[in-house]
């Protein structure tokens, strides 16, 4: 009898504990460290979700440490999927970083609303060099103040295995017909035309924009949907979703069961010829298959497209902000100011192999130079990330799992458009 009671009680207790373990704490105490005096050693902590590129970040900060004796920068990289939770907990308590890497657009709003970040617009020179769309990624939705120095933007294109294309005598397509012929030729060669990790829903809205942005109208549609002139049930938007459905024949037959890491291995191992993905993927391919030559192109618009030129969707990736409870604000602002200089932009581009939003940055890597040129010539917003992550459900959270349903034959492109419109309508109101 008593043993059983013990166990039941223990079970209930464990249950209660698990449920409430995630509850946030109340008002956070300030950082425990003492403010540093002028001559003393200062350690600034920087948190990031880019654990994979930690060596690059350490090299970048080494440059700053050399130029600024007495400042030590402690970089801590976390897994991207765990970062939001870790940062939210850290900023709430006393263990947060002096300088957190902040998610862009909707992703940073809760930290701003909670007063965990200091606005930095008045303290940092050179924020005006950033494109307004990039800078918007670190602005408070309600107050319009700037809370971060943008450090990177990402582009989304079609990568391909150039070594394989050369062996098969295939070339980058410049028209829609050439694009379809290319996919058929690859099928005939017995390789999977495109590798896609569709088991993870976050890649699917990206895939949609890579193939369909020009079809629905890119930035033109963005303006129309924000003003309320159009919505997601617009025939052009539905047609772009039909393109996703049409592309399924060029994906692995088990695409819904393939994780991103598997798909990446499929691409680098030469089992798949193309990778619809982001510029953030490039280092993975370079490391995975150093001897393979990679190329990149923009998917040509199909007949009937709103835009007649191919586009490269992109988005600001994030920014570095200032923890309101940092004990080393002066030094942290100095570091943030450095992050707005061309010197930082160039080192960042060279070391991290990512695109800096700072103007005048040159890319030693010809492929990155090409990707950057494609984006700067024909940019398009990654619509659902840039504009539709300010509420619940986020646009990507609706469309991602719904494209999985589309691939599984459980939904039509019209269903997807309707669900997306219904979902974001719960919080989004157009402003004419």
């Amino acid at each position, binding site marked *: 009898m008593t043993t059983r009671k013990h166990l039941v009680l223990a079970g209930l207790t464990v249950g209660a504990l698990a449920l409430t373990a995630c509850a946030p704490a109340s008002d956070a105490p300030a950082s425990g460290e003492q403010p540093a005096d002028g001559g003393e050693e200062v350690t600034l902590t920087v948190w990031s979700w880019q654990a994979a590129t930690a060596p690059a970040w350490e090299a970048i900060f080494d440059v700053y440490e050399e130029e600024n004796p007495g400042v030590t920068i402690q970089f801590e990289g976390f897994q991207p999927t765990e970062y939001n939770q870790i940062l939210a907990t850290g900023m709430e308590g006393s263990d947060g970083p002096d300088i957190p890497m902040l998610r862009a657009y909707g992703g940073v709003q809760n930290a701003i609303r909670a007063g965990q970040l200091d606005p930095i617009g008045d303290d940092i020179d050179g924020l005006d060099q950033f494109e307004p769309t990039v800078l918007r990624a670190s602005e408070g939705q309600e107050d319009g103040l700037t809370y971060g120095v943008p450090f990177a933007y990402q582009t989304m294109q079609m990568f391909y295995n150039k070594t394989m294309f050369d062996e098969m005598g295939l070339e980058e397509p410049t028209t829609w017909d050439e694009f379809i012929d290319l996919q058929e030729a690859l099928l005939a060669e017995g390789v999977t035309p495109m590798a896609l990790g569709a088991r993870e829903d976050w890649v699917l809205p990206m895939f949609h924009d890579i193939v369909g942005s020009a079809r629905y109208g890119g930035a033109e549609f963005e303006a129309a949907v924000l003003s309320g002139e159009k919505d997601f049930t617009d025939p052009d938007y539905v047609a772009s979703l039909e393109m996703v459905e049409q592309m399924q024949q060029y994906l*692995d037959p088990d695409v819904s*069961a*393939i994780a991103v890491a598997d798909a990446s291995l499929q691409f680098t191992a030469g089992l798949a010829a193309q990778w619809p993905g982001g510029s953030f993927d490039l280092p993975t391919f370079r490391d995975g298959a150093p001897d393979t030559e990679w190329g990149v192109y923009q998917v040509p618009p199909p007949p009937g497209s709103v835009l007649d030129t191919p586009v490269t969707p992109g988005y600001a990736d994030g920014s570095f902000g200032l923890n309101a409870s940092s004990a080393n604000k002066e030094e942290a602002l100095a570091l943030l100011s450095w992050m707005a200089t061309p010197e930082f932009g160039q080192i960042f581009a060279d070391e991290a192999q990512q695109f800096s939003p700072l103007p005048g940055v040159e890319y030693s890597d010809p492929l990155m130079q090409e990707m950057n040129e494609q984006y700067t010539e024909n940019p398009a917003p990654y619509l659902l990330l840039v504009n539709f992550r300010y509420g619940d459900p986020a646009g990507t959270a609706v469309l991602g799992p719904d494209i999985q349903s589309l691939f599984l034959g459980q939904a039509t492109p019209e269903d997807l458009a309707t669900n997306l419109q219904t979902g974001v309508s719960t919080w989004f109101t157009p402003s004419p």
Partner: protein
Amino acid sequence: MTAPATTVGRTARPRSKNTGIHLPFGVGLAFVLPAALLFGVFILYPMVAALSYSFFDWAGTRQAGFAGFSNYVTLLTQAPYAHDLRNAFLHNLLLFGGAVLFQNTLGLGIAALLHRRKRTKRMFQTIFALPYLVSPMVIGYLWSLMLSPLFGPVNAILRGVGLDSLAQPWLGDPNLAIWVVVGVTAWQWIGFPILLYGAAMGGIAPEIDEAASLDGATSWKRFRYVTLPMLTPTIGIITVLTFIGAMESMAIPFALGGSSGSPARSTDVMMLLFYRTAFESGNANSIGISSALATVLFLFILVVSVVITRFMRRAERRLF
């Protein structure tokens, strides 16, 4: 060890009747205080805090006014929560059903077989309990690697032995994926009922079994009419614990289907919905709604656990 537990449950009954020991109030308090403090700080406070959070509107991590029951109304009636909640809840029930089925058939069966083995019992119990000692997150990732349609060994082995038709996209088919979650969960936890049933069977006096044997009862009859009824309390404990575990399942579904319950929300469970609402949503009021969800889930688990316990206790009374 066991005596104070009885008094925890029934504080109204005078302590001396149970134990024959009289303790001055201060001394008793001193003994209770460390545990009470830990309980208060780590369990009671967060519980009460989560409950109170659910009655407020939130702006990020700052409270923005009293909200009454509006977070609960949002949770239960508005998109996307209402639909996701129903979907996730059904999957939790499936997990519970699957686990109970596995544990009370396979688990009990293995425990019964092991009970009769004197020499290798310990070894096998340890082997069966091993997965239970590994973090469920690790178990989930290992299985997701093994079930990969491209590079996973499971399909490779099936194709290798000519069972091509059984080589499935395990985690890509919504009708299969949830059963993979059920199966992997059951696989990990099977050692737990084996240990508990083993211990309970060890506690049954051998004389009862011998007496039945002398009366001519077959091995099956002895199990069915002697051992099984005497295991009723253990079955009750395991059912309650399994229920709690299934309702709070998070790590294995997360490792196998990500936070959105891929593919197409077919492996979504309540805790994933909680996780998404609390940590991945762009909603300023995510703390309010996720706290309401946590409270609803807690109350549901509490009520059902109490009901199961009552039911099992009544079943026991009928037996003895």
